[in-house]
Every structure is written in C-alpha cells, then in structure tokens.
C-alpha cells in the first residue's frame, strides 16, 4: 500500500514544485531586464544607508552603549542585525504585497497563468520563493558588509543566513495574505504605516526593554521583534533557548499567512 502511494505523492509534490518554480522563473526572466535590474540592485542600499546613518552617524553621538544585560557593544553592532531583519521584511513585503497586487489586479498576469495547469497555491508558492530568492541575495550582501565592518564574524554570518530566510518567509506569507484583501493602491498607505511602525519599534534602534511596559508587551506579539531578536542573538553570538522560541513563532506566522493566501487567492481568481 505504502509503496504504491508514496511514489504517487512524491511525483505530485514534484509536479507542484515544478509549477511553482515556473512562476518563480517568470520573475527571474523579468529581473534580467534593465529597468527591473536597477530596482533590484538599489533595494540593497536602503538598509546599508540606515546602518551608516543611524548605526554609525548617530552611533558616534552615543558614547557608550550598554545592553540591558550589562554587555557593552558598539551601537552599530546593535543596529546592524535589526537592519538585516528589516531588510528581509521589506524585501519580502515589497514582492508579496505591492508587486503581487499589481500582477494580480493591474497587470492581470495570473488570469493567464490560471488557464494553465498551475493552481493558485502554486502561484502563491512561486511568488514566495521569488521573494525569498531576492531577499536572500540582499541578506548575503548585507552580512558580507557586516563582516567587512567588523560587526559580526564570518562564522556567525553563515549561521544567520538561514535565519534571514525564515524572517523573509514569515513576512512573505503574511504579505501575500494581506495583498488578497487590498482593494486599491491607496490601501498600501496603511500597510506602509504598519510596516514602518514595525521597523521603528521592534527593538530596532533601542532595546525593547527600554520601552514603556505596555509597548514592550505589544512589541513582543509582532513578528519583526522576533526576527530582530533572533538575528541579533546569532550575529552577536549570544545563544539561548529564546532563539528557538523566536524561530517557532516566525515559522507559525509564515504557515498561517500562506494558508490564508492560497485560500483567498482561489476565491479571488476562480470566480
């Protein structure tokens, strides 16, 4: 029985993956064109600029930076992993909210795709894989910069890389779910505000422990906080059981997002 079912299941999974990969492939093809390429490359600079401005520029005004646990580290080393997490979030959200919405509603790209054997879930998966590919390229570059600036070691950078993929996955899945509820471009103003608030208040520029108590509680419920804490633990080389908790939170967040996204897409596209 098992010998009969398993190969069938495996073949089906492989087919699914291939179809999702075809959706990813479309984006790779598009990325090769000049205009798009510029956009991709320029995306890398934003977190770098923040690191240099806040981490180094404002960091120079902070004479000594003491963490709540008493350790003293350069302010830039504190900000850098947060920028890494924020960059994974921004990259994943850019692809899965704005670009995804544009492809679905404005370019009507998926109307054509749905006439093929590709299913909504596979479209969602394919777009998410692309968001992760794009985000990972940024992460690799940013981690390289961190190593060059002496903000982490090469070894810890290697450990942190897969963690950035998990952060991207969490935001990618949720972003796609949100995009299916967006009515018009104006709604992105709201998404942007939330995204920016997360960026500012996830223990990014100051330890979450220094926030007022109510805010500390709220912040601990949000996903970027867990991403920042996970990456900060890894790049500064401070391990603890808490890191597993952060990871579990992010994976759960990603699964819920993806499940909502594929259900909503089927509703929206199969009218």
């Amino acid at each position, binding site marked *: 029985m098992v010998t009969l079912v398993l190969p069938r299941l495996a073949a089906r999974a492989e087919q699914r993956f291939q179809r999702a990969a075809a959706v990813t492939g479309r984006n790779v093809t598009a990325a090769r064109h000049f*205009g798009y390429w510029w956009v991709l490359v320029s995306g890398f600079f934003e977190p770098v600029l923040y690191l240099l401005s806040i981490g180094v520029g404002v960091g120079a005004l902070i004479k000594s930076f003491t963490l709540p646990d008493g350790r003293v580290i350069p302010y830039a080393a504190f900000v850098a992993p947060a920028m890494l997490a924020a960059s994974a979030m921004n990259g994943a959200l850019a692809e899965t909210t704005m670009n995804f919405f544009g492809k679905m509603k404005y370019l009507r790209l998926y109307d054509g795709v749905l006439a093929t054997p590709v299913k909504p879930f596979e479209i969602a998966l394919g777009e998410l894989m692309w968001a992760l590919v794009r985000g990972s390229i940024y992460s690799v570059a940013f981690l390289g910069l961190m190593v060059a600036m002496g903000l982490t070691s090469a070894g810890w950078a290697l450990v942190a890389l897969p963690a950035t993929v998990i952060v991207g996955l969490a935001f990618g899945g949720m972003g796609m779910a949100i995009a299916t509820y967006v009515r018009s471009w104006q709604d992105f103003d709201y998404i942007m505000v939330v995204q920016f608030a997360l960026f500012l208040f996830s223990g990014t520029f100051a330890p979450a422990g220094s926030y007022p108590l109510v805010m500390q509680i709220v912040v601990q419920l949000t996903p970027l906080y867990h991403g920042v804490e996970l990456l900060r633990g890894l790049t500064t080389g401070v391990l603890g059981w808490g890191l597993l908790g952060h990871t579990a939170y992010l994976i759960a967040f990603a699964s819920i997002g993806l499940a909502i996204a594929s259900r909503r897409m089927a509703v929206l596209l199969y009218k």
Partner: protein
Amino acid sequence: MAHPTYAVFEHQLVSYRRVWRGSVLSSFLLPVLFLLAMGLTVGGYVDRGGGLGVRYLDFIAPGLLASTALQVAAGEATWPVHAGFVWHRMYHGMRATPVRIPDMVRGHIMYILLRVALSAVGFLVVMALFGAVHSAWAPAALPVAVLVGLATAAPIFAYSATISTDGMFAVLFRFAVVPMTLFAGVFFPVDSLPLAARALAYVSPLWHGVELTRAATLGTPTAWGGWAHVSFLVMWSVAGYLLAVHRFSRRLAD
C-alpha cells in the same frame, strides 16, 4: 474665468478628497512615529553622551519637519505625475484645453505645496506638544517647509516627466530621497561625515532646509547665515521649475 493654473490646482484638490485618509497617515503619522522612536528611545542613549548641547528630541524634531516636507513633495511629485503621463493621461487631457504647460506644472506644484504646508502645521503642533519648540521664531519653520517642498518637488517633476517606467522611482528614492533624509543633518550633524559625503549634503536642498528649521525652532544661528540657505533653496526651485517645464513640453510634444 478662473486662471488655468488655478483650474489645475482645483483638479488636484478634487482627487485629494478621495484619498486624504491614507495620505494623512503617511504624511503626518510617519514623521511622528519617527520622532517617537528616535527622539524618545534612542534619545535616552544620546543624551547620556551629551555631545549635542541640546536634547536629542529637540535636535531631530526640526530636522524631521524639513524631511517631512521632502517626503510629501517627493511622494506627490513622482507616481501622480507619472500617472498623469502614462496611466490616466491627465496631462494629455489638459493639453486639449487652453491650459498651458507652465499652468500644469504650477497648478500641480501649488497643490503639493498646500499638502506640504498642512503636514508641516500638523508636525509643528506635535513638536510643541512634546516641548520641542524653544523659540518665538518657530512659525517661520512653515514657509521654510514650503520652500523645501518647492525646491524638491520642482526638480522631481522634471525627473518624473523624463523616465519611461515607474520602476525608476525606486532608484530616485533609494539614491536621492533616502540618502538625503539620512545624511543631510536630520539625525546627526553633518560635520561628522567624511568630506565627500559632507559636500553632497551641502548641495542637497534638505540640509539647507534643516539648518533653517532648526534655527527657527531652537533659536540658534544657522551654519552659513539665513539668507545663504534661503537663496540656495530658491536656486533649486527656479532651476527645477524651468527644467520641469522643459521636460513636460518634451513629453507632451508627440
């Protein structure tokens, strides 16, 4: 009959009535969040260092006011202008009426300056609530914000009328708007920048706006003297406007 420039301005106001909620968020709430995050939390660490002479919150608040003018101007001078050429082709529609190209540019920029002024008033009130206003000159920050809006919106109009795909806006933001926001003296004094970067900051309209705004709300002198900064912003505005009219004429020629 109303002047055509005013007709263009009015056209923009009509569309603003539909989208104002979202724009209140992005043009008012975002800078306030920034002020809270940097001024209050990071501010605590900076103030312990004591290198600035003033509270960090008081230092960045005027900078963020000027930077808000830039954000609103940049947001409104990019996609909406592109849309007018490519998506809903509003400018092509206007071309078929007595509206001249300078009317289109002026009317649309007038609307943007109104938006800048509204955001600036809102932010100034928030600043006052946080006790970040320390001079009777503070209201002068409003015309400065409008001037920063003009000095940035006008050249960006020219850019928007030139590019062919809206993807190039990401390039504008990442290589001009964001660097200006982060390195033109909003968050830390430009003196600590390497020479080349400092030169770029001096060229940018935002730095001059930040200097003037900071002088207004803190009652301190500016780096180069008030009129020097104002002249510099006027230069950006005039050059940007002329270039914008030129690029609009090119774009609408075919």
